[in-house]
């Protein structure tokens, strides 16, 4: 019988890897940003799992901060995407080659 903690940890690692792989492979800026949010979801699950395992509240506080910061990041990121779309007509990452990548 596998204990609960390993299951939750496995889920968090799987989410993190899915997010990281997506962020590297996908070319649409919004999809990349969504993948980064999936990574952060994985991180949050890991924090909550460990918080319960360690019987300490620090991890849960961290999750609250992660959510707040992710919201701030989304606001700034989406604004940058809109600006890019207006100027460039696309948010496809492959099309940005004004400078060498």
């Amino acid at each position, binding site marked *: 019988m596998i204990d609960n903690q390993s299951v939750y*940890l496995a889920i*968090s690692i799987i989410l*993190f890897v899915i*997010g*990281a792989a997506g*962020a590297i492979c996908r070319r649409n*800026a919004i999809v*990349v*940003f969504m993948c*980064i949010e999936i*990574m*952060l979801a*994985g*991180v949050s699950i*890991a*924090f909550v*799992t*460990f*918080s319960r*395992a*360690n019987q*300490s509240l*620090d*991890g849960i*506080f*961290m999750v609250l*901060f*992660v959510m707040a*910061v992710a919201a*701030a*990041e989304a606001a*700034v*990121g989406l604004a*940058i*995407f809109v*600006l*890019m779309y207006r*100027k*460039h007509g696309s948010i496809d*990452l492959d099309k*940005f080659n*004004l*400078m*060498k*990548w």
Partner: protein
Amino acid sequence: MLEFVVPALNLKAILPQLILALTALTVLLVDVFAGKDGKTSLGGLSLIGVVAALVTLFLSRGDFESAYAGMLAVDGFGFFITLIICLVALLSILVAISYEKVCPEIRSGEFYSLLLFAAFGMSFMGSASNLIMIFVALETMSISIYVLAGFKRDNLKSIESALKYFLLGAFASGFLLFGFALIYGAAGTLDIVKLGSFFTAHPDLLHQPLVMGGVALMTVGFGFKIAMFPFHMWTPDVYEGAPSVVTGFMATGVKAAAFAALVRVFFVAFAALQTDWTTIMWIAALLTMTVGNLIAISQTNIKRMLAYSSIAHAGYLLIGFVVGSEIARSAILFYLLGYAFANIGAFAVISAMGSKGEEYNELSDFQGVGFKYPMLGLTMSIFLFSMAGIPPAAGFMGKFFIFSEAIKAGYVWLAIFGVINSVISLYYYLGVIVRMYFKDPEREISIAAPAGTLVAALSLAAFGVLQMGIFPSYVWDLARASAKMLM
């Protein structure tokens, strides 16, 4: 029922940072009520705030050890990093006031308040004593800088640089956070000092996958921020596209803050693991400086060239990090300050090389500048000499302290590679000086005479560089005393 104890509110311990934040808010407020003419005063207002923060920083020095229930370490190390950040912010604002002519967008409350908020985050990164604090400070800094990088709203390059920095920065902070989570899982605490004592007390737990994975992921996350090889790819694009004054600010401030957090986490929390990460950092230091210097040679755009040079400087700093003794940590602090003066100065000159809506950033544009604009030519030469490590400039003393300490600690090969790299870097730094003084201009460029604030920034930076190079003892003693007090 748990008894609720109201924690002590040591506002005095964070007075410099508090002043930075309050000035940022005031600038935003004044921006709303000021008319079109009032906007010119915003730069001056932020300048006053930064100077006030600097003064209180010195006045309140040594009053506290830690504040806010161990969240902040108000120690010497944090003091020195805050000093660097305040000076960087001061110089950047001075440059920004004169850069308003080239790039009118930045004459707004948002620009100055974001710059101050970024400085606020940076200085907290240097004194954060808890992983939560490091994360929040890092994001305060990063999110402000994502916006600053894209501040030239009509310039596609600037937006592109903001977009790239944003995506890669968010990606990197994901790695950093997962590293934090794994370490938290292994040790059950996020407090850096407690982590240190936990790992010292439980050497048997050190090599379990959770800890090793956590340290590796955190190295990736911090590696992005300090532009360590192989996580340096974003640097040239972001530095080239961002407005010059912002590039100078982030090349120095972000690097200093991220290095401070890296040093604190690795030397306090993971001190017991030092033998494990030293090997990796040894290789990273060597590759970072070599790759940075070799690619810098082939650049034709000065901002891109300085971006690769900043990667190389991260490599030199990593040598100090590998050596890891207390003197090496003081050398890192000294080097960071000297690098900050020289780099901000160089970007101040670059930002002066432009007229409204147009910037002259190609290396060939610098041909003949030395005689046509003697002030720019002379100060640029001083800054480039410092970065190349030629006496009597700050860069020479910084490299001297780092390399000599490396030799003393037995890292002779690393020191030799460092010296070889400095020689390689001479080629492209001197190349700019040769262009400025010994070549005829290719195309006619017309730039405005340097404004008063720009002259002030250039003189202050040049004074700092030369002072630290000719009379290094004052700053060196300060750095020694600061590195001693790393909790």
